[in-house]
């Protein structure tokens, strides 16, 4: 740890999200293998890597859903897991995680109540952000896949969290909706929200402020899309990922 601290810059005291030597093992598999980073408030970070690279486990460690085998995860300066901080985190899981038997409005109001939101207006706001305000009374199970995804995002936004974790938020949605989602993310970040999202789609990674390449449970590179392409000397991110991760992939 001392070596790593010496290598990186001085820790940012105002980091919204911080990982310090995070390790999570499942039996002999090291799903997260010594990850350290500081993420600043009001920026969009993309965790990029192939399926099974450890992105979801990393997000689960950061949200306190799983306890690290070693190391430490902090959100808003508080070590996770912490119930108090959960009230200030929005989490959109890979599966939609909504109640198909409830209506759109009932789903959003349920999560608002669980988060302790009292103002009715916040629920309406979250639903209009994702353009579902006119479907409030539709039963969630009857929605299209894209609408369900939007409802899922609304449920993660309903308490206006300063930190938002989105696990593969744009998987399985059409290009039009993807553009809408990114517009939402941008405006949230502009309002000071820190967004950490995971993706294995390289072409949307350029929309993030900063990228973290995840491979075999390690963060193998970090920087803006342009920086990473320049460092690898390749024209696109996909090739940059392959070239920057060549040595790591071999060790697994």
């Amino acid at each position: 740890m001392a070596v790593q601290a010496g290598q990186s810059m001085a820790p940012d005291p105002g980091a919204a999200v911080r990982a310090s030597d995070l390790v999570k093992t499942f039996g002999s598999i090291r799903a997260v293998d010594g990850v350290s980073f500081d993420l600043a408030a009001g920026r969009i970070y993309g965790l990029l890597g192939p399926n099974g690279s450890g992105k979801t486990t990393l997000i689960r460690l950061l949200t306190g859903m799983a306890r690290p085998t070693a190391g430490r995860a902090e959100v808003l300066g508080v070590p996770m897991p912490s119930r108090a901080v959960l009230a200030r985190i929005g989490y959109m899981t890979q599966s939609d995680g909504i109640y198909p038997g409830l209506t759109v409005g009932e789903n959003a109001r349920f999560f608002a109540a669980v988060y302790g939101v009292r103002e009715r207006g916040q629920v309406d706001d979250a639903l209009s952000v994702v353009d579902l305000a006119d479907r409030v009374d539709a039963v969630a199970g009857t929605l299209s896949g894209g609408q369900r995804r939007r409802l899922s995002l609304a449920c993660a936004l309903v308490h206006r969290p300063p930190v938002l974790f989105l696990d593969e938020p744009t998987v399985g949605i059409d290009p039009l909706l993807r553009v809408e989602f990114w517009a939402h993310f941008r405006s949230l970040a502009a309002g000071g929200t820190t967004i950490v999202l995971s993706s294995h789609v390289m072409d949307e990674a350029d929309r993030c402020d900063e990228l973290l390449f995840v491979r075999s449970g390690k963060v193998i590179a970090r920087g803006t899309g342009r920086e990473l392409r320049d460092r690898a000397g390749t024209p696109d991110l996909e090739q940059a990922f392959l070239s920057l991760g060549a040595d790591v992939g071999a060790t697994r």
Partner: protein
Amino acid sequence: MSGRRVVAIFRRVVQEIRRDHRSVALLLVVPVVMTGLIAFIVREGQSPAVGAVVVNPAGPPGLVVAAALGAALEADGGSATLVADEAAARAAIEDGSASVAVLLPAEIAPGVAMTVTILTNGLDPAGEATQVAAVGRAMLAATASVTGMVTPTIERTTLYGVPSDDPMAPFAPAILGFLAYFFVYILTGISFLRERTGGTLERLMATPVARGEVVGGYLLGFGLFATLQVAILLAWGFGSVEIPALGPLPSFSVGLGLPIAGSPLLAFIVVVVAALGAVSLGIFLSTFARTELQVVQFIPIVIVPQFLLCGVLFPISSLPEILQPLVGLMPLTYAVDGMRQVLIAGADLGAAALQTDLAVLTAVAVFFATIASLTIRREVA
């Protein structure tokens, strides 16, 4: 019709089931174990030795009959003891020191018709019937051994009065308690499983909600429906509403009209507390299931043994000795006994037996609710 496609589907079915070890066990092992258990209960089931007390107001002739009765009972491992009067006999039945009391008539003489009354506890009608039958046989043997004695008429009564002649009455307490328990378990188990598999539990755990709050909310929600279910079930069971004849329709009654000695409200409380235990059990067991089929697969493990051992099907007193300790471990045993206390004995909240039943049922509900909330996987409680 293509044979090849049929074979392809056949192979797919076999491959899938072969890999699902629980289904294989359900198909191949569980029926063997269950028939074995049932055969064991039926074959090794004991006709428990009759411990009888005899009241003899008839003087020396009665003593002769009592001695003959005692000899007949002792031949089957039982016993007969003389007690002073009917009050002493009732006390002996109530405290369990005797299972049957035989009340001889005031006059016993050769050639005189006599009526013998056999008194039992009354809480376990089916189990007591075998005992009454055994005493009846012993009584016949006893009178036959005394020359000139007329074969007696045997009347049956219980501590709580003459047993109802409604053939459903002996089963009602157990069946009502069991059904409420069973359906609530299935419903809760499956809906909590949906919460786990649908990803909503994961999302819920990422909110400030506490695990106890989740289980508490489920208890309230399913408790509401369990309460409704029990209310309807009991109203149907105990109620009997005459619908008057209307035009060509003859009059008929709605409801089973089962006899109930105690307060229907108490019966309601017993079943609701038992059902809340089933809600907790459903949440807890859903941890070990990944599909709805697997929740159903728990039935032979969780529900069937309770069904066999709680006295619904086989009287507890007739179960083999080895299984007796298990009886006390089954939550349903207490639900069934509580229902019998209320329905047959007319117990009120002051009755010790009913207090025990309610206390155990409450403890079971609290216990399973606690471990259910502990099995919700999360790092922050």
